[in-house]
């Protein structure tokens, strides 16, 4: 869903850049002094994983492909603010080194995939988690559903920007974007749940805010 140069109008890109810059500034402020020695390398590895996983385009119906986004995954693992910073890092490298996503559209791409996808997805995840009884099943259900929502919501934001730019009418571009990304979102849900499940087995402490951790003695510790 990386928007290239030329798809969006100047005012839309400028407005998206302003919103993104404010959100990233807030994320820096919120995260400043926060990462401890454990979390800093985790941010790096999370960015490396998201970058690598985003390259794996999987074919879907209709001659189209989709790939992992990872914004919700980063938000669950690192918290929403550090998650946004990881997404911005990945998106900036993709734009400057790999010409994936235009330089003029970088604010729009950060807004759609980092902020709408990451923050919106995390908000949905917390909301769903609050509705469900506390259990591993609920955690994965909320993660999967929110992962699907994060991709679909990002595609809605992208469609709105395309329509506001006069590139394609909303009545055409909105259903088209939602249609294809609702399918890609299923892949997002599967990959997010698989990655979280692997982490819950290898480093359960990283998900202790959401999943009960079994201690050395076999006792279950829960963090509030």
């Amino acid at each position, binding site marked *: *869903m*990386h*928007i*290239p*140069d*030329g*798809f969006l109008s100047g005012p839309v890109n400028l407005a998206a850049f302003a919103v993104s810059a404010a959100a990233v500034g807030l994320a820096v402020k919120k995260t*400043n*002094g*926060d*990462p*401890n*020695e*454990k*979390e*800093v*390398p*985790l*941010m*790096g*590895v999370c*960015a*490396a*994983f*998201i*970058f*690598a*996983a985003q*390259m*794996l385009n*999987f074919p879907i119906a*209709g*001659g*189209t*492909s*989709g*790939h992992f986004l990872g914004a919700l995954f980063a938000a669950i693992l690192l918290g929403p603010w550090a998650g946004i*910073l*990881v997404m911005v*890092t990945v998106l*900036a*490298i*993709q734009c*400057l*080194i*790999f*010409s*994936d996503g*235009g*330089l*003029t559209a970088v604010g729009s791409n950060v807004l759609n995939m980092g902020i709408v996808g990451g923050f919106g997805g995390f908000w949905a995840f917390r909301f769903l988690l609050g509705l469900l009884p506390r259990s591993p099943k609920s955690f994965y259900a909320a993660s999967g559903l929110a992962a699907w929502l994060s991709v679909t919501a990002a*595609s809605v934001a*992208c469609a709105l920007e395309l329509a506001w730019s006069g590139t*394609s009418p909303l009545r*055409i571009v909105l259903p*088209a*974007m939602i249609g*294809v990304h609702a399918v890609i979102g299923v892949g997002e849900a599967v990959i997010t749940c698989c990655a979280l499940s692997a982490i819950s087995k*290898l*480093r359960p402490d990283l998900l202790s805010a959401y999943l009960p951790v079994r201690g050395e003695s076999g006792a279950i510790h829960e963090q509030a």
Partner: protein
Amino acid sequence: MNRPKIFLWSALFFSLAVAVFISPFASSRPDGLEKVAETHGFSEKGETAAWRFPVFPDYEWKSARNPFVNAAVAGGSGTLLAGLAAWILGKLLSKRNRAR
């Protein structure tokens, strides 16, 4: 090496392996937005990039003859670069750095 460190290094090597060995076989079909742009006739608007100096345009190193090598080099470099950049960012924002 303790368990957290083993996890971090394994996750990094896993990501690197995905980028180097699996990404060359990724689907080359257009992605969701590209497909919508093709179908609804605005894909030609996005053909000129504003940034002229990408090192690996379209996730390809252009120097080897083998396309798989080109994709593997680009993917591996990007993965390490993304990891390094986010690690530096985290380091700059970390507690110890602020205390200094």
